[in-house]
């Protein structure tokens, strides 16, 4: 058992349902008790879906518990088949019902006989997989199912398109800014002269899946959804995959250059260098911002980064490499991706933290005393408590992560949006600090740290008075550095002289 107040990753069935409901005309049957069906509420309320969520619960109640659910599950499948005419019905249990260890595969087989739709059991271990792993697996499973079905029926499309083409893999519902990212990627591909062959799973028909192999390559921008599918397509058809997340000016250029390599190998005569240069220097404002005076003042400021693997790694690189900001530590809750994450952020931060314990993350933030936090909604609240400005860069999703205005994280417009996020985090923080210094807000309180052991050292009155003159937002740092300096030198009382000496020696 684990005492848990907050989770970064949802349970597995949420991942499966995100993939199933992203497809068009796919219905999911959830084998679960009343109340486990809140996915429908999330989709309707968070992403303001206009349509009913195509998920029906085959209710597990006391009755089912005592007599088994076979008839009920099969009935529900065939009923939905008749009512909604879906192309595919995906059956999934939840953590709860998976314990019953009913032979769901057998129910699916039985229902298949009667239903016009294809019927599939999501093949996920609900105690070992989290949301992301389940989503990745479910997408791969559905793709494999339709590839194999087409192969059997002989209508698989493997011949490459005449012009360069791409499958964009990993766009899904209830994911972080995915809808806007997708628009931006389509625009980018258009500008590169690449036809979008398919986007999966969001908005795709399962019938399109048999044509996936005709694309020249796959683009999988997210670590959390897509890699299993692109691996499968690579193994089956030798399809190359671009798995560089085009987030930030540098990585977007690297992604485009990788695409160029693939297209060139495929016989296309493309050179994207001028495009990259024009976008970087004149279309996107991010490179210019990095060089501008506004950004100069961010140089060397301390930040911490935490989120899913994709976003935390990308933002860490942008902060360090494109803006000269000092990332004290970067972390992710995507524990299975530890190796990948460490490699990505190596050299871009002082320390890497792999953990999904929100308490630990909160403590580490408090101890690091960064000037800004880039994290999830939870870190935003930690930041509120500690009075440190926070930009939200990652799921778990929240209604605020479904902005109505266009806010992609990927591509060149994404670079602009990310700059705004970073800049506003620091400067709105700065504004509060200035208000404190200039006394604009009479009600403003000094900043107190949530977690910070009181000192064993004495401060004499003059030194205390001097410390109080230090603006609140650096006072903690000055205090700690001065105390460390004094402790190292065996001094027990801090005087003005000690303060100045500490500043001269270590910049306290």
């Amino acid at each position: 058992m684990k005492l848990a107040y907050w989770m970064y990753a949802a349970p597995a069935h949420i991942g499966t349902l995100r993939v199933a409901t992203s497809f068009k005309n796919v219905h999911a049957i959830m084998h679960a008790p009343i109340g486990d069906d809140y996915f429908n509420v999330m989709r309707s309320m968070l992403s303001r879906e206009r349509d009913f969520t195509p998920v029906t619960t085959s209710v597990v109640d006391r009755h089912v518990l005592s007599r088994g659910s076979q008839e009920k599950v099969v009935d529900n499948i065939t009923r939905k088949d008749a009512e909604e005419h879906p192309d595919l019905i995906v059956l999934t249990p939840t953590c709860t019902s998976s314990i019953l260890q009913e032979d769901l595969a057998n129910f699916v087989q039985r229902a298949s006989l009667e239903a016009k739709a294809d019927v599939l059991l999501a093949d996920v271990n609900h105690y070992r997989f989290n949301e992301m792993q389940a989503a990745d697996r479910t997408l791969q499973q559905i793709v494999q199912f339709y590839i194999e079905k087409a192969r059997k029926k002989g209508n698989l499309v493997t011949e490459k398109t005449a012009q360069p083409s791409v499958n964009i893999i990993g766009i899904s519902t209830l994911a972080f800014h995915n809808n806007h990212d997708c628009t931006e990627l389509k625009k980018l591909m258009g500008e590169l002269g690449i036809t979008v062959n398919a986007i999966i799973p969001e908005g795709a028909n399962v019938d399109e899946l048999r044509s996936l192999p005709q694309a020249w390559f796959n683009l999988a921008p997210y670590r959390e959804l897509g890699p299993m599918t692109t691996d499968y397509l690579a193994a089956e058809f030798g399809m190359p995959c671009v798995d560089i997340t085009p987030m930030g000016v540098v990585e977007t250029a690297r992604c485009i250059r990788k695409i160029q390599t693939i297209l060139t190998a495929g016989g296309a005569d493309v050179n994207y260098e001028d495009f990259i240069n024009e976008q970087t220097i004149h279309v996107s404002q991010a490179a210019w911002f990095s060089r501008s005076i506004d950004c100069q003042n961010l140089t060397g400021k301390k930040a911490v980064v935490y989120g899913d693997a994709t976003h935390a790694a990308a933002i860490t690189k942008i902060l360090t490499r494109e803006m000269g900001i000092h990332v004290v530590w970067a972390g992710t809750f995507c524990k299975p991706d530890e190796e990948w994450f460490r490699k990505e952020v190596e050299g871009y931060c002082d320390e890497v933290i792999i953990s999904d314990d929100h308490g630990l993350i909160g403590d580490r933030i408090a101890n690091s005393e960064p000037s800004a936090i880039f994290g999830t909604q939870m870190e935003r609240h930690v930041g509120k408590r500690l009075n440190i400005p926070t930009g939200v860069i990652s799921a778990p999703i929240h209604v605020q992560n479904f902005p109505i205005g266009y806010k992609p994280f990927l591509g060149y417009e994404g670079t602009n949006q990310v700059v705004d996020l970073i800049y506003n985090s620091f400067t709105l923080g700065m504004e509060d600090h200035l208000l404190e210094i200039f006394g604009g807000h009479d009600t403003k309180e000094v900043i107190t740290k949530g977690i910070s052991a009181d000192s064993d050292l004495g401060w004499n009155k003059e030194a205390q008075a001097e410390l109080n003159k230090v603006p609140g937002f650096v006072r903690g740092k000055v205090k700690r550095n001065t105390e460390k300096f004094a402790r190292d030198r065996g001094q027990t009382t801090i005087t003005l002289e000690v303060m100045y000496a500490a500043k001269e020696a270590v910049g306290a």
Partner: protein
Amino acid sequence: MTVAAEPQALNFECETGNYHTFCPISCVAWLYQKIEDSFFLVIGTKTCGYFLQNAMGVMIFAEPRYAMAELEEGDISAQLNDYEELRRLCEQIKKDRNPSVIVWIGTCTTEIIKMDLEGLAPRLEAELGIPIVTARANGLDYAFTQGEDTVLAAMAARCPEKAPVAQEEKDERNAISKLMNFGRKKEDVTVSDSEYKDHPPLVLFGSLPDPVVTNLTLELKKQGIKVSGWLPAKRFTELPVLEEGYYVAGVNPFLSRTATTLMRRRKCKLIGAPFPIGPDGTRAWIEKICSVFNIEPQGLDEREAQIWEGVEEYVKLIRGKSVFFMGDNLLEVSMARFLIRCGMTVQEIGIPYMDKRYQAAELALLEKTCREMNSPMPTIMEKPDNYNQLQRIYAQKPDLVITGMAHANPLEARGITTKWSVEFTFAQMHGFTNSRDILELVTRPLRRNENLKDLGWEKLVRDEAIV
């Protein structure tokens, strides 16, 4: 829709039970706030935890007084010892928070793996020295608000059996009367006690926000009736005394199990009344309690009339309009009865579970109201089937659908006006005073859509074959 049909009898039906509602563990969100010295530990899976985190509207910002005991693979496969695991977590909670009570909320999973919470609790309680109350708020047996029922039923067993003898102790225990007499001198209190008529002790049950508790307590005081205590109280250490023969009355329609426990296990006498929702319900509730105590109610006519007068601006917005309850929080019958009294027509009352005995007085009042308002008797649809309900909604075109969160946006996109049922669960809606709040909520979507009407944005989905 104008219906001129003669009222018949209430029609009870039951469908497939394929409907959306919240998990009963939701109740921790309001109960932990209500009982200020409590800690709620929900023993379940990641699925339960993610629900609490997402569905409650507020995320778990800091560390509230509830948490998950998240079951991991080792727990499910019984490789770990339940007692040891729970002890470890509860010790941590004791150390961090030192609550007066830890409430274990069992879930579907603890049911399925047959974790013996009721067996483990007394042993750990003795070892830890903190009361542990166990409630099986699982989705296999219960829906949404019934979670409160399971907790209150469990807590009923913890109410003291005898009133303490010393006056001081009594003062301490009876927090409500203290509040009422706050700041008065001893003599005044005695005088004030004489304002009450002589009647057997009365305890009310149901979790309400403090201002509503005060309000209802005052309403009864006006009739000379003294409320001896509330279940739950603001603090676990202030649970009301329940002696055999005490009278009890519920304020919420979803507390049938608590009512049964109070009658069977604590030998209390249940006052079966309509629920104090809306001016009509509140009046009926007070009248029924008065009648049990042989008290002639004073001024209720004027009081009710005055309330109706005060909310007329709202009532005229809904008079003659139709409403459809898809069924969610078990407040549906009381709400429907009140809205019919306001002049609405109710097309269907979906409800997850219908205890006809516990709700008997409310059902009777509903029937009476329909007759008096010349409104058709609605069908009460227990365990509804949402898919079928949608077909009926498309056909009947209600002016307002009161529904769970999963359906509100899609219905609005199809030009059908909705109100979330969940909001009523959290609103202060009991008593005379709060009638306005119910109507503020009920009329909001109507007022809003009235506002938008001229913009011609009725249908916000592309043409589709409505099947």
